[in-house]
């Protein structure tokens, strides 16, 4: 339940920010939604099993599902690199946007 509420709040905040005009706000909104989706992936693996997923140390019934963690790691890296690129785009060549930013 905690996870579901957290995801809902983060998505709501992210969508609100994305609907603003400024590029930096859009980037921050995308970051929030991205993290909400990462939490969604974690919850998809089941959060009730929390032990290290190591065979021979923990029984498989209690070991956490390692696959969502691998997914989230990949997703974080990809989103991070794109966000850096977006911030570069936000900072460079701002005079070619003919519409009023403010």
């Amino acid at each position, binding site marked *: 339940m905690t996870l579901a509420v957290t995801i809902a709040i983060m998505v709501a905040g992210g969508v609100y920010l994305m609907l603003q005009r400024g590029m930096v706000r859009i980037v921050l909104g*995308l970051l929030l939604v991205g993290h909400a989706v990462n939490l969604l992936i974690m*919850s998809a693996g089941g959060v009730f099993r929390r032990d290290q997923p190591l065979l021979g140390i923990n029984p498989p019934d209690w070991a956490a599902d390692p696959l969502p963690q691998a997914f989230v790691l990949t997703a974080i890296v990809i989103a991070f*690199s*794109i966000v850096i690129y*977006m911030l570069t*785009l936000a900072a460079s060549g701002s005079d*070619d946007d003919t519409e009023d930013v403010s």
Partner: protein
Amino acid sequence: MNPALLPLFVGVPLAVAGLMAVFTPPMRARSTLMMVPSGLGLAASSFLLWQTRDGQIFAHNVGLWPDGISIPFVADTFTALMLWTTSLLVLVTSAFAAAVHDDRSPFFPSLVLVLYAGVSGALLTGDIFNLFVFIEVMLLPSYGLLAMMGAFGRLRAGRIYVTVNLLTSTIFLAGVALVYGTAGTVHMGELAGAASESPMVAVGMGVVILALSIKAAVVPVHGWLARTYPRASPAVTALFSGLHTKVAIYAIYRLYALVFDGDSTYLWIGVVAFSATMLIGVLGAVGEDTTRSILVFHMISQIGYILFGVALFTEIGLMAGIFYLVHHMIVKASLFLSTGAIEHTYGTGALNELGGIAQRQPLLGLIFMGAALSLAGLPPFSGFVAKLSLVIGAVDAQQWTAAVIMIVVSIITLMSMLKIWGGVFWGKDPARETEHEDAGATSDPDGSTTVTTTRVRPMVLVPGLILTATTLCIGLGAQVLLALSTEAAQGLLDTSGYIEAVLG
């Protein structure tokens, strides 16, 4: 063929891209090296197509992990067909980029090759999360290409493009999470039929398909395409038009056939959305006044046609859709290359600033006219066969409204192509006319002004010529591609062969 070689479709372009980024080779070697991986890919995929022509499926578990745990690379007739077309397009647009000196910027070849690797991976993979990763591999270089190689407004276009695509990828990922949470796997073989059995998986997969539809620019989520593609350089637009949206379309075909098992409960959504795409795309083109922005709106309209094959989900419908997909990739790239050649040479793509090119260069006019007639669906080009079989498929499935829309949209497409033809190829060159008026105004005694006749160089023409010749060949010898498309459609209707290949 040894299926263990399949990952090379990704590995070779990636390796060459990396090497070229590290050791920036000199100019001449660069253009040649850029074409090596796609040339090899074309040869390899022709061989693959030959091997899979009667339904043989190759699958390889990367890293030799056991079946069901591993990420498989799978190639059936549909995959091989797409790989062949992709390689052809990358090769031809690379040649065009070299001819217009787009490859002067040192990282251009590397970015194109990474894009090629990403597309090949997305076509071959048999795992939804891996599909997400390969789509990202394909998109990351595109962000660079769009912002690096465009004209005025490219950064603004780049911002829209990156924002939309990052949001879409996030939605895609949310869908993958929902699928994993409900079905417990993201392996396409294990997911087979899951969405038709459980509505919960269907919701998760629905989110994935929604994300793919945004990437494919289906109405009502098509707005980003028309505002970004015309801003890139002509070579880049041709490359994107051939590859990006088409990977999403391929994935929609594959996932709907495999995971939904062609479930007829949801097909009406497709019928409505894709009919709207055909109609709204073509009407959007009416208000545009540069060659590329008109062509981009037509692309949206054609995406509706291609995806209609899924909405029908009959053998003839799927066959027509796959045939249409291959035809469209080639024809659209040809149109972008021939108008791009004009834009490169004359410095503009605006209809009212060009004219009389058909008289000056009949060959260029023929290249454009061939591809334009093929796009509108006139014989003897491939577009005729594609549209005819799709309309037959729609009539077979009693989709009368859709069949009527298809025919009406074809006529509007033809009118729109005539608008480009009238503006760019016929009439008088406005630039020349003003020159004459100036000469008259000054009443120069030797009034025979030496008019500099700008011409498109032959090297810039050849890529478009190759593609238009291909569409003519496909139109004249349609039986070959029809047989391959039928085989591919049967692979989608009966997925047992695919499942057996990936799960062993």
